[in-house]
């Protein structure tokens, strides 16, 4: 596709514009925000429990979003928790895409028994609802950051695999692939040099849409105490802890809840925007 066409579509697509601006703002806040705030996200300070939000009345030195049940600054926990969420989501999506794409290309290219085995594996993973599978595996492997990333990857690569496989099955019968085989290219070269560049569009679309989803699933696992473990902050475990104080200190659950919603919304907008911009079906419209 022509770069100018894509740029033009990007500019004119409200989802893409709003989503990309919001996503950039979220990332910048999470990366640079913690450097401006001088509180420890994990150290208790029992004399300062449940301070209500002070806003910017003391500039950046006060507890802008108040403090929690252990006297920790809510804002710094929010930002650090967000860093974890986003970092995990990016790593997980990249891993999902790598695993899904490689298996999808292998299944689509070789067909036959390889295809059958990989597709049956996909069906098995599709047969157990995502969160149930993640919960069972986390409970058995134990909770750690590496396990969390592994489990999230494990329960989400199928989509990418199926889409890639279906694309490859169409592409491998096209003439340029036959031509390259006639020229003596090996399987590896055909799969990853010839076919792969032709399936990237769908992969980018899928990946961009999975980021928001992964943030949400990670929050659910952390909420159920199977994800990031306290005292390390994450939006999920902050909501879980703040829920107890909902009637008296509502900011403890509203801050992470709204942050979670904004982050997911930003990346979902971006994902939808990217789909609209890149979707080959729309070229005709």
């Amino acid at each position, binding site marked *: 596709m022509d770069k100018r066409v894509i740029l033009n579509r990007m500019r004119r697509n409200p989802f893409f514009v709003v989503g990309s601006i919001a996503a950039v703002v979220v990332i910048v806040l999470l990366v640079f925000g913690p450097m401006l705030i001088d509180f420890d996200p994990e150290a208790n300070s029992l004399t300062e429990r449940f301070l209500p939000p002070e806003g910017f009345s003391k500039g950046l030195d006060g507890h802008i979003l108040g403090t929690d049940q252990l006297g920790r600054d809510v804002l710094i926990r929010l930002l650090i928790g967000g860093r974890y969420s986003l970092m995990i989501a990016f790593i997980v999506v990249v891993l999902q895409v790598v695993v899904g794409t490689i298996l999808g290309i292998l299944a689509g290219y070789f067909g036959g028994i390889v295809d059958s085995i990989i597709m049956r594996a996909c069906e098995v993973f599709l*047969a157990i609802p995502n969160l149930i599978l993640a919960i069972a595996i986390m409970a058995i492997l134990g909770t750690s950051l590496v396990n969390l990333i592994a489990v999230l990857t494990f329960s989400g690569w199928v989509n990418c695999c199926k889409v890639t496989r279906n694309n490859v099955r169409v592409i491998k019968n096209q003439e340029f692939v036959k031509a390259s085989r006639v020229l003596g290219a090996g399987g590896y070269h055909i799969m990853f040099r010839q076919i792969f560049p032709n399936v990237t569009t769908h992969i980018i679309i899928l990946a961009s849409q999975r980021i928001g989803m992964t943030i949400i699933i990670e929050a659910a696992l952390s909420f159920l105490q199977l994800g990031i473990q306290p005292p390390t902050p994450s939006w999920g475990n902050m909501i879980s802890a703040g829920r107890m104080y909902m009637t008296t200190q509502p900011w403890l659950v509203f801050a992470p809840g709204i942050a979670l919603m904004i982050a997911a919304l930003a990346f979902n907008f971006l994902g939808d925007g990217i789909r609209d911009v890149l979707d080959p079906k729309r070229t005709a419209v």
Partner: protein
Amino acid sequence: MLKYIGKRLLQTLLVLFIVSIFAFALIHMAGGNPALLLLPDGASDEAIKAMEHELGLDQPLYIQYIQYMIGVFQGDLGMSTAYKIPVADIIAERLPYSIKLTMGTVLVGCSLCIPLGIIAGSNRGKPVDFFAMFFALLGNSMSAVWLAVLNVFVFSVWLGWLPSMGAESFSNIILPALTLGYPMAAEITRVGRSGMIDTLSEDYITATYAKGISRRVVNWKYAFKNALIPIITLVGMSIGSYLAGAVVVETVFAWPGIGQLTNQAVGNRDYQLVQSLLLVSAALFTLINLVVDIINSLVDPRVSLE
């Protein structure tokens, strides 16, 4: 047609077979001796040996697996180590709650949003379309965690209209059903809208316009039916996954369904229960998907030809 159904049935059975091995292997990786958990503290070595023998733990793994599967086909899913009663009884007690919640959720999801999706799709680019898309994206971005807590805050704490937990009366089901129903409604809106857009660009729709049939009749009589197919698939899959356990929502609202049970089983390290729950969840989910596929192939014969 029959061939298609038979093929899908075989596929489903194969998948369930692999899931059963997977669940069995996973639980054995967890380790721990179920015999110790079932016996009182300080049981003698002979008692432990006897219990292990009774549970078949002294047999090789593949025999244990075969015995477990024979039990499954006879309705025996093993003993829960935490509750000390048969797993099948626990699941039978919880499943009706999951069914109730699923029905409530589907009611919320479908009643609001099938019309919204269809109207949005047939008015592409108009304000109603924009509203529907925003509604859908917001629903996709609302995690169950945050939406559940928000609903409790608004309807229980602030307005005081609805109870925030329990399952005794009708009013208990409203909040969990709303919480689960909103993301589903959002997804239905989205799928209905894009289904409608795809259908309306088909040649046969242009042909009906050319015959002078009014826009409303074309939308609701011709295009609607075709746009319904992806919605049926989606609703079916949602039913499957909610039956298999809406863990977060059931936990927040203390709704005693399969999802809450899964979370409790994991918390109690009740691995026999977890293993059987994995199997039951997968069975519910895949069987519902099978039914959906069959319904789809009845609605649209092209499906079975793929």
